[in-house]
């Protein structure tokens, strides 16, 4: 998918985003490692939807926007609204993974009218004392995201993926830095207090091999959101859409299609 650039919001900030397909708009909010443009799951979803996947402020080409964004829910939610406004989209299906699932939940709680249906995959943002999961940041600096994949070697094949090693490593560290701004030192964002405001039909997904968000978080999210359903991707790790693109796309499409 080609990266496109537009301006959004009262400050006219630059937004880099991927877009493909046609149909109902589907806003995809990425995980801690951002986007790289070759996500097979997004390509599959674009056969049915108008897929819009923006880089959040602080990630990828928007790395320099990090100092300007407040780590609470307000700035990031206003930003998502600005993105939808700039594209002329009133409401969309919103699919978020990892930290993007937290952002999606905030959007659905704070601006319910803009979210037609909601899919939260391996969501961060709650904290269960007895099941903390692995610390996504306290990892070897040489391969800091390895813990996020079901198999260690997948970082090389799915994330670095033939790119220049230094560039890919720097981007990986900067994307984790952006994640840390919102989630350090404990990924408890306070979203728990707002989840009961969500009105959209919601699917919560956990992955069988996710070491960052263990499966115990699935029921916690499901119970906090009215009428939410829970499914699992047994073979995926934390970055499910990179690891199991077809299973991911099928699950999302199956849920959204049934919503009609």
């Amino acid at each position, binding site marked *: 998918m080609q990266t496109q650039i537009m301006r959004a919001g009262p400050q006219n900030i630059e937004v880099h985003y991927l877009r493909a397909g046609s149909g109902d708009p589907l806003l995809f909010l990425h995980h801690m490692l951002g986007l790289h443009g070759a996500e097979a799951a997004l390509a599959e979803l674009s056969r049915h939807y108008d897929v819009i996947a923006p880089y959040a402020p602080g990630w990828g080409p928007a790395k320099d926007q*990090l100092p300007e964004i407040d*780590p609470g829910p307000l700035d990031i939610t206003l930003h998502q609204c600005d993105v939808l406004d700039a594209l002329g989209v009133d409401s969309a299906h919103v699919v978020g993974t990892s930290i993007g699932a937290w952002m999606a939940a905030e959007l659905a709680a704070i601006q319910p009218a803009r979210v037609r249906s909601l899919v939260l995959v391996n969501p961060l943002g709650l904290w269960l004392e007895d099941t903390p999961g692995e610390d996504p*940041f306290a*990892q070897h600096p040489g391969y800091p995201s390895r813990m996020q994949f079901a198999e260690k070697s997948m970082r090389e094949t799915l994330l670095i993926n033939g790119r220049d090693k230094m560039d890919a490593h*720097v981007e990986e*560290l900067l994307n984790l*830095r952006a994640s*840390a701004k919102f989630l*350090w030192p404990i990924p408890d964002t306070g979203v728990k207090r707002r989840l009961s405001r969500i009105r959209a039909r919601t699917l919560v997904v956990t992955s069988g091999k996710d070491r960052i968000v263990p499966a115990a978080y699935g029921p916690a999210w499901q119970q906090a959101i009215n009428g939410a359903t829970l499914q699992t991707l047994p073979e995926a790790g934390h970055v499910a859409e990179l690891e199991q693109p077809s299973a991911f796309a099928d699950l999302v499409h199956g849920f959204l299609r049934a919503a009609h």
Partner: protein
Amino acid sequence: MKFHWFNLMPWPYLPDDFAEKHRSVWVDVDSRLFDPVKANRVYNDYLDLLEFAEDLGYDGLGINEHHQNAYGLMPSPQLMAATLARRTREASILLLGQSLALYDPPTRVAEEMAMIDCISGGRLISGFPVGSSMDDNYACGVNPATLREKYLEAHDLVRRAWSDPDVFAWNGKHYKLRYVNLWPRPIQNPPPIWIPGGGSVETWDFCAQHHYNYSYLSFSGYIRGAQLMEGFWRRMEELGCEFNPYQAAFAQQICVAETDAEAQRLYEKHARYFFSRCLHIHPGYADAPGYRTEATIRAGLVTQMAGQSSAMNQAAALSWQEMIDKGYIIAGSPDSVCEQMERVAKTLKIGHLVCLLHFGDMPNELCRYSTEMFAKHVMPKVRPIWNEYEDHWSPKPMPREDRAVPRAVTMPEVPPVGAPARIAGAR
């Protein structure tokens, strides 16, 4: 050249199998290995050594800050500085660390440093490190994405708090204080400021901009350090700073004995304790995402500890002679040490040497011996190396005759073991 006696204050009772059984000496080190009763002697021995170093003519007494760390028992270097301010007379108090971003409000640091400067009669050197990722991010929970912003803002706030005679409001991004009005204020205005760093390019520019001393605190020795210091001096030249060796300090492990063979016999096991146990750090704590800036990552400068954990893994496997040849440690007879010291001074071009004469589980008596050998047989020969330069980075204390003299301490007689202690007011 100036010599500072510096002690990390390591815990000397880590078990032989520490590195096999434990994943890190820092952050999540097992607290069951600490014994507060033994610590009574450990702390007092270490403070005795610092005071002893003053008697031998060391220019400064160095202390620093670490948290949840079994090789550095000083979460609060100010407490150490406070006791040194009372119990010493002449030496600089080299407080190489208050990680500014850890204190909210950071004016607390400005206050405490002012107190120490007043009590000591203006002998404080004030170190402002960013702090390690282990300390700042993991032990103290500071967000790595905003650590440097906070540090820089805290620095500006402390500097202004020391210098602005009027009450002012500070409406910063990270700190908001309606009334800043420092009481007390330091004698020196400001105390000399040293920036301990591991090797981030921004720190060099910061030192150049503010005319601060850059202190490279590495444990991997002067040969590895030479490359980094070369980068520092090149950058200073690019920025138009006139060369002065006193603008840089370097930390080095040193031990001295009658002969080279004797040095190995006395010190090798303690050096091994340091390299294999004290620097056994879980790599996951070495470098939180955002701790290093993009420029530093791209410059290929590894973070102090990531570099060190790999360097240290090598050091632990080296023979004694290799440790010396590779510069991890300067060791031997006075003549051998003098020769190595001259190489340090000339290759790194540093005017301040932070002497790590205590390392690992070295006992008090042995450390006194090495400290004395260095002071008597090495210091006098190396001291004149930079005589033609003026040191702008040492304290300018009050004249000796004007300084307060603390009350002499007369220790009460200790009752013999078994005899009842005399209690005031008891019959």
